[in-house]
């Protein structure tokens, strides 16, 4: 830790992205802006990796006294873990942005949300959490505002409702405990619950408000409405950060309410139990389960690549919430690991979609096709991302999902575990749909001159692809880090093998046997006659001759039968519900204004008379 003195670790990680973002916005020259932006994203990564051993053993704390509040930040192993994931996806986003967006505006607000997220992870007291939460929301909102006003307003209103419910909860905690720091607030809150100073309803409202606040950002089902719009109508390489890391801020919020405020854990016992599980966490588990199912079903039926990835991201974060709700050691360990793997493969997915949209300019599945030959490297990255998201053994996605399976089934929450099975099958389905529609089959004529993705974007992709494979083959690495801040009873036998009380998974042996199996299959393949390549049109159409004009591919309504099977449920949509609510409130506003300020002096003086009447009555009593 010689290179970066300890006192500068936290401020550097916190404020360097914002500072460089402002610089990039000011010096809006072509390559100056990109270098500044990438440096801004690289600084947190380097500083954090240098501060690894100091942060994982002890803690680095840092306070800013702004007079009005004391903002207190601490870098311990938990916040280091989240911050490092954020920084990693951040550097990938920076590389992606340098090729997909040519505007200082994007750099300023993406790096502002980067600072916001870092602040949220490192915050140790409520007000700094709230401040950086608002900053993060504002930054990401401005990125969406430029492209689509309606979606951005929907996103902003929902996140501001979340933020303000958090402020209400903070106010209620402060009212009872008088402090804003996590630890002290939780200690006093615990004492109060013990001595009965705080009613159960009070604790329930605090919990509900926190659940609402963090649920909005994590995209739990009733509150996920903003996700497809906000993730879709955005510069895709920024969305890799937006959906990869900003949703983790919501997850981190859940962790705060569940773990970081230890005594709040005690409070949960005050909230009573529901046949064996804490009601609070049981609610979170079911919220996660519903999110997984609903979001995955919606993802499967989407026609637009951005919408599919957005709903899939909501679904995957639903897994994490579910695992947190299950609340036993293994499941929470699985949740933390899934935070890492989701950030990796979802970030990778969004960068791939950025490359696709950048090169082809199209976003709907029916316009894509046969890009595997034209963009081979991006295709390889897409395969890695697909394998990881679908949870195929050698990839990180599988390891984390495996832990979540184990945890959920062990904790005797059968129906919740059932939803995981359904969710992972749906994930498999929409991922294969993405592969089929974009990469294989007949290539539309206007995509023939598509070139490979630009170099910076490819570098960004590799930055995210490598951890997918590394943590896939060596899950022990990540679990050892997670065990440092949570006592998940997952034992790490070696780098490659992790085992829980009821099962074990040796990633290396699975990979080796897989390679051996592939070798055997390869041998059988080589033995046969060497295959010759034939054109796409030389295909069996019950004997009819086929030319290029024929459409040999099913890219639209790929899962039409599933939509027919589900048409009972698809009638209801949360989106229309919120739209009606918004119009209702705007009409109420119109009615109120027309009614109250109706321009007639007489009615105004009647209002005065009414108030006088009230005062007179009160005065006489």
């Amino acid at each position, binding site marked *: 830790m010689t290179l970066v003195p300890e006192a500068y670790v936290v401020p550097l990680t916190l404020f360097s992205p914002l500072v460089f973002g402002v610089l990039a916005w000011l010096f809006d020259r072509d390559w100056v802006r990109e270098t500044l932006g990438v440096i801004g994203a690289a600084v947190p990564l380097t500083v954090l990796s240098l501060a690894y051993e100091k942060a994982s053993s002890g803690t680095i704390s840092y306070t800013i006294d702004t007079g009005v509040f004391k903002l207190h930040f601490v870098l311990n192993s938990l916040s280091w873990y989240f911050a490092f994931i954020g920084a990693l996806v951040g550097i990938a986003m920076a590389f992606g942005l340098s090729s997909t967006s040519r505007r200082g505006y994007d750099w300023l607000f993406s790096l502002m949300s980067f600072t916001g997220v870092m602040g949220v992870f490192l915050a140790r007291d409520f007000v700094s959490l709230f401040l950086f939460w608002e900053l993060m929301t504002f930054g990401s909102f401005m990125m969406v*505002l430029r492209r689509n006003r309606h979606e951005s307003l929907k996103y902003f209103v929902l996140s501001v409702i979340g933020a303000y*419910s958090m402020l209400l909860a903070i*106010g209620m905690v402060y009212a009872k405990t008088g402090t804003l720091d996590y630890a002290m607030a939780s200690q006093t809150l615990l004492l109060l619950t013990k001595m009965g100073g705080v009613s159960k309803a009070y604790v329930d409202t605090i919990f509900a408000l926190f659940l609402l606040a963090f649920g909005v950002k994590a995209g739990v089902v009733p509150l996920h409405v903003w996700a497809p719009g906000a993730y879709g109508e955005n510069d895709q390489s920024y969305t890799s950060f937006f959906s990869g890391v900003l949703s983790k801020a919501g997850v981190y919020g859940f962790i705060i309410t569940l773990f970081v405020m230890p005594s709040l854990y005690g409070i949960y016992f005050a909230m009573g139990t529901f046949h064996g599980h804490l009601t609070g966490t049981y609610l979170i588990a079911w919220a996660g389960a519903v999110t997984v199912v609903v979001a995955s079903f919606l993802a499967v039926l989407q026609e637009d690549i951005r919408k599919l990835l957005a709903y899939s991201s909501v679904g995957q974060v639903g897994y994490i919430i579910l695992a947190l709700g299950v609340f036993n050691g293994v499941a929470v360990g699985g949740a933390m690991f899934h935070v890492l793997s989701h950030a990796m493969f979802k970030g990778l997915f969004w960068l791939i979609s950025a490359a696709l949209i950048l090169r082809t300019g199209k976003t709907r599945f029916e316009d894509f096709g046969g890009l595997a030959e034209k963009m081979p490297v991006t295709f390889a990255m897409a395969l890695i991302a697909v394998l990881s998201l679908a949870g195929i053994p050698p990839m990180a996605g599988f390891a984390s999902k495996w832990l979540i399976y184990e945890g959920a089934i062990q904790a005797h929450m059968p129906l919740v575990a059932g939803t995981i099975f359904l969710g992972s099958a749906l994930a498999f389905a929409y991922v294969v749909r993405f592969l089929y529609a974009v990469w294989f089959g007949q290539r539309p004529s206007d995509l023939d001159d598509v070139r490979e993705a630009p170099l910076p974007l490819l570098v960004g992709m590799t930055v995210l692809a490598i951890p997918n494979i590394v943590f896939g083959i060596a899950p022990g690495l990540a679990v050892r880090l997670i065990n440092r801040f949570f006592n998940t009873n997952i034992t790490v036998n070696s780098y490659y093998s992790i085992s829980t009380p009821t099962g074990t998974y040796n990633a290396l042996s699975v990979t080796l046997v897989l390679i051996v199996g592939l070798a055997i299959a390869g041998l059988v393949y080589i033995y046969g006659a060497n295959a010759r390549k034939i054109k796409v049109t030389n295909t069996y159409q019950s004997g009819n001759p086929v030319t290029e004009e024929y459409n040999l591919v099913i890219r639209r309504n790929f899962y039409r039968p599933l939509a027919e099977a589900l048409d009972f449920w698809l009638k209801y949509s949360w989106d229309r519900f919120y739209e009606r609510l918004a119009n209702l409130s*705007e009409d109420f506003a119109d009615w109120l*204004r027309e009614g109250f300020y109706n*321009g007639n002096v007489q009615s105004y003086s009647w209002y*005065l008379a009414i108030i006088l009447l009230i005062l007179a009555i*009160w005065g006489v009593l």
Partner: protein
Amino acid sequence: MNGQYASLLVALPLISAFFVPLIKGLGGRAIKYYLTLITALQAGVAAWVFKTVYTTGKPIIVMAGGWRPPVGIDLYIGHFAALFVLIVALVSFFMAIFSFDSVSTEPTDKYAMLFLLLMLGATGMIATGDIFNLFVFMEITSITAYALTAYNKTGEAAEAAMKYIVLGGIGSSFFLIGITLIYGSTGTLNMAQLAQLAGSINPTVIKVGLSLLVFGLAVEAELFPLNAWAPDAYQAAPHPVTAMFSAFVVKAGLYALARLVYLFSHAAGWDFILKLLVIMATLTVFAAEFSALRQRDVKRMIAYSSISQVGLIALALSVGSQLGVQAGVFHMINHAVVKTLLFLTVGYVGVKVGGTGIENFSGLGRKMPLTAFALTVGALAAVGIPLFNIFWSKVWIIIASIEQGYAWEAGVVLAASVVEAVYYLRLIHTMWFGGWDGMRIRESLPLGTIALFLVLLILAIGVYPNPFWTLAKSAGTDIFNVSRYIANVPLMGVGP
């Protein structure tokens, strides 16, 4: 330079107002230069007073005619008064510069006179230590406000002025009834002595008296049912005047309200008054925000937003805890800065593009980039985005109100500020990403510098609020801590 020079604060505008007709002969521009000069001088005096009060820590007591307080009328310039008189002076100085090219209707000498009297009225209301003197200064402010609202000589301006007169007239008459009742039972008009005697007055008289006082001031401070005149007055008045209305005229009313309410904290039935004020304040925020939602006229929209922020300040002041009052004062400062910037920029767009309808604002980012940038910063600050100044005060107000048990009211206020975010961000979107008719307008230098100064001030407070927070804290204790107020005023031991 002992304390007595502080009386210049009141004397200077008064005398210079009456010199204006003499200068009328030299032509319109000369009057405006004269006006700027006077407001600059006033700002200098206010700054000197501010320095002395904050360095010595003791308030300046100016005794009219050398008589000791209960007999003579005294100006009590404590921490709050010093701070706010400086804000009044500065804002008037900026508006004087702004009125160079925004006020064109011909009797500019009348305009200058009214301008100075308005500033005088507001300064007086803040500085006075005597309730009848407060009534007189309130009347001066109101009458000049009526005149200035009607200044544009259009039908709407006259209509707005008429509404303001009718409602303001009723309000001030009942305020006077309140004063008579208080005077009848205590025999004194001096605030400090009133605070001492507050406990001993018989309950019904003090209840009716205090409620009427509060009613009178509530009309001036635009609380919910009584602020029907405000949006029309703001919209119809000339642009610099609207900025002055929202920056300090309303604040003076609010300060007087808070001062009187906390003076009578020992009186019977006091907490009902506080509860009533809290409810009225919450309703103000709620009604004003929702009415601003689908506004076609940006100036009226910002008027509603100013009314709602004033409601928020009223909530903070009437929460009844020291923290609440301090947060309220801090919000007063922030609100003054932000609203001046907003009305300045909107007014300037109204003058240059002709009309403040929302269609004139589309594509403003490319038409008048500096004004658009200032307006955006002002709007974002008003919404309460972190790194801007209102964020800090809003957080404290919410926490203070929840601490006093008003969680539901805090909830309603937060819901309303979500609505505020919606209409401000719609404005920002139309400005930066709306259609653009191609021609770029040159922006004037002085106003640009004022706007930039205010933007820098907003960002300074937003990034490092410590100095301003300590100012607000001391000003807040000055209002809340009545016993210190009584100790500071040298009372002659006379009276019943």
